[in-house]
């Protein structure tokens, strides 16, 4: 992997992190331990909900302000063993719940293309750091699009592997049946190199799976059937449409067959996600009880201490999600919401399996538009709709990659390819072909307003 080098990366951190607030903790340059192996020289940024022993693990929450991880996530362990060096911990929405990195207790992260705009979220710190060359590559987590949406807003690649391909050991759980560690990079080839080292079974995560092959294969678009979804085409904004049409045109010219598909349940994905993700979050976040970990409010009993600690230090969005999850799991609501959402999830999985009987990959926008201004952030409810295009890959476990496909008004536009379970290699082959034939990071970089980048 071609790397920028420690000097340049730390120079960029010194120059830009003050303005962008991408890193929450930077490992001092003199404390870096250069590693040996295939990833030697790679500077790795890690989202601050993934454990690295000895470094903070705040999850963007005041509740964990002083918490230091006692162990290292399997993915990080494998990358470091292959020679990568961790440069620090990256900002995120609190407990990865958000789409703009404005719900972090440690301040907003800004988009390197335009600091008035959001980098997306929840892996906004990871996306901004990669786009602004403050690391070579970054880890994020993707529960409903939290790697792919910020990658799209920052003009880089964001990849969510097939569920189980990367071990979740060491990732702070949000919604365990949806969570996957993902990778943000300036080049798809970098993602491949990381996956060759990090993917595969892990005895510490029983949902981890045998890794598919990540060796590069020749990609021939003429042999590809690419699905496009009619309902999504109606919902993409005018900023995305030209890039989407251009990408389809390029694929067609190269011989690909474009296959129209219909996804009648497309507008229920937000509801299914909201019910399932919040239900799982309400259980997962029960561990933050004011007794273990850090911040503890005063109380005369366990229950009082717990409620006071959580009430005081959880942010509003985390509370909203815990409350909704608790509500839909309560006896009166379980059947009509939680159980029903789990059944609709099966319908969605079957629909996407049916797609992959007809096509090799599905092309969609990654987001409906370009990065919005932080001062004009949509209300909480509208923000949930940001994930319309990305959620299906989480509900089905399928792999997906967001890639830069153009610019609109000097801001990056991202599209997304989704493939069938364990066909991750195909996605990376396609992304590498698109990098040469549609657009890559280097092309977008020239439009960047951050002159020094």
């Amino acid at each position: 992997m071609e790397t920028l080098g420690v000097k340049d990366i730390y120079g960029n951190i010194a120059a830009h992190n003050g303005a962008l607030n991408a890193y929450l903790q930077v490992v001092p340059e003199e404390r870096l331990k250069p590693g040996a192996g295939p990833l030697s020289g790679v500077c790795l940024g890690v989202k601050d909900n993934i454990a690295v022993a000895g470094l903070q693990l705040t999850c963007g929450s005041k509740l964990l302000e002083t918490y230091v991880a006692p162990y290292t996530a399997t993915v990080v362990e494998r990358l470091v063993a292959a020679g990568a060096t961790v440069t620090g911990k990256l900002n995120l929405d609190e407990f990865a719940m958000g789409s703009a990195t404005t719900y972090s207790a440690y301040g907003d992260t800004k988009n390197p293309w335009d600091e008035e705009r959001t980098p997306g979220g929840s892996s906004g710190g990871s996306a901004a750091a990669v786009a602004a060359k403050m690391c070579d590559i970054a880890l994020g987590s993707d529960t409903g699009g939290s790697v792919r949406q910020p990658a799209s807003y920052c003009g880089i690649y964001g990849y969510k592997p097939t569920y189980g391909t990367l071990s979740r050991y060491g990732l702070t759980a949000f919604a365990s049946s949806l969570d996957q560690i993902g990778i943000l990079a300036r080049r798809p080839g970098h993602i491949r190199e990381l996956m060759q080292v990090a993917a595969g079974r892990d005895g510490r995560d029983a949902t981890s799976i045998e890794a598919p092959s990540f060796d590069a294969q020749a990609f021939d678009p003429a042999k590809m059937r690419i699905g496009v979804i009619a309902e999504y085409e109606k919902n993409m904004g005018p900023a995305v449409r030209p890039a989407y049409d251009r990408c389809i045109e390029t694929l067609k010219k190269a011989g690909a067959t474009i296959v129209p598909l219909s996804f009648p349940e497309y507008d229920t994905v937000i509801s299914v996600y909201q019910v399932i993700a919040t239900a799982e979050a309400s259980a997962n976040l029960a561990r933050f009880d004011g007794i273990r970990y850090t911040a503890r409010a005063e109380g005369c009993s366990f229950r009082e201490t717990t409620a006071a600690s959580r009430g005081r230090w959880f942010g509003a969005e985390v509370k909203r999600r815990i409350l909704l999850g608790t509500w839909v799991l309560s006896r009166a609501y379980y059947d009509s919401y939680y159980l029903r959402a789990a059944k609709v999830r099966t319908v969605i999985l079957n629909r996407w399996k049916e797609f992959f009987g007809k096509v090799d990959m599905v092309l969609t926008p990654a987001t409906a538009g370009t990065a919005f201004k932080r001062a004009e952030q949509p209300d909480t409810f509208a923000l949930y709709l940001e994930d319309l295009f990305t959620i299906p890959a989480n509900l089905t476990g399928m792999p997906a990659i967001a890639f830069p496909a153009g610019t609109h008004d000097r801001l990056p536009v991202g599209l997304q390819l989704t493939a069938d379970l364990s066909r991750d290699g195909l996605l990376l082959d396609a992304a590498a072909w698109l990098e040469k034939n549609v657009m890559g990071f280097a092309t977008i970089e020239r439009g960047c307003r951050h002159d020094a980048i």
Partner: protein
Amino acid sequence: MTKPSDDIRAVYELAALTGEKDELTAMEGHFERMFKHLADLSRVPVERVEPYFTLPLRELPLAKDAPAPSGVEAAIRGTFTQEAEGFLVVQRVVNRGGDACVEGEEE
């Protein structure tokens, strides 16, 4: 400003959360809107459909559940400074002053 309903208070209690009255009222408005939106789940026919709680085992070759020693236990034990009668002693919240409960008091 309307009074938060008993429902929202009950859910706060179930979720082990506290919040000011204004927060509870705002949450009530949010959930009213949220539940209206969630009603679209009933549009999809789900008769004879099995719920999907986690990826079906047949889809992917799952790892065997064989945990390897992580060193976590030793790291955690290292954070305790006292041991009494074979138990690790957890440091209590102290010096809260005023009418607060005294050290070691439990419900």
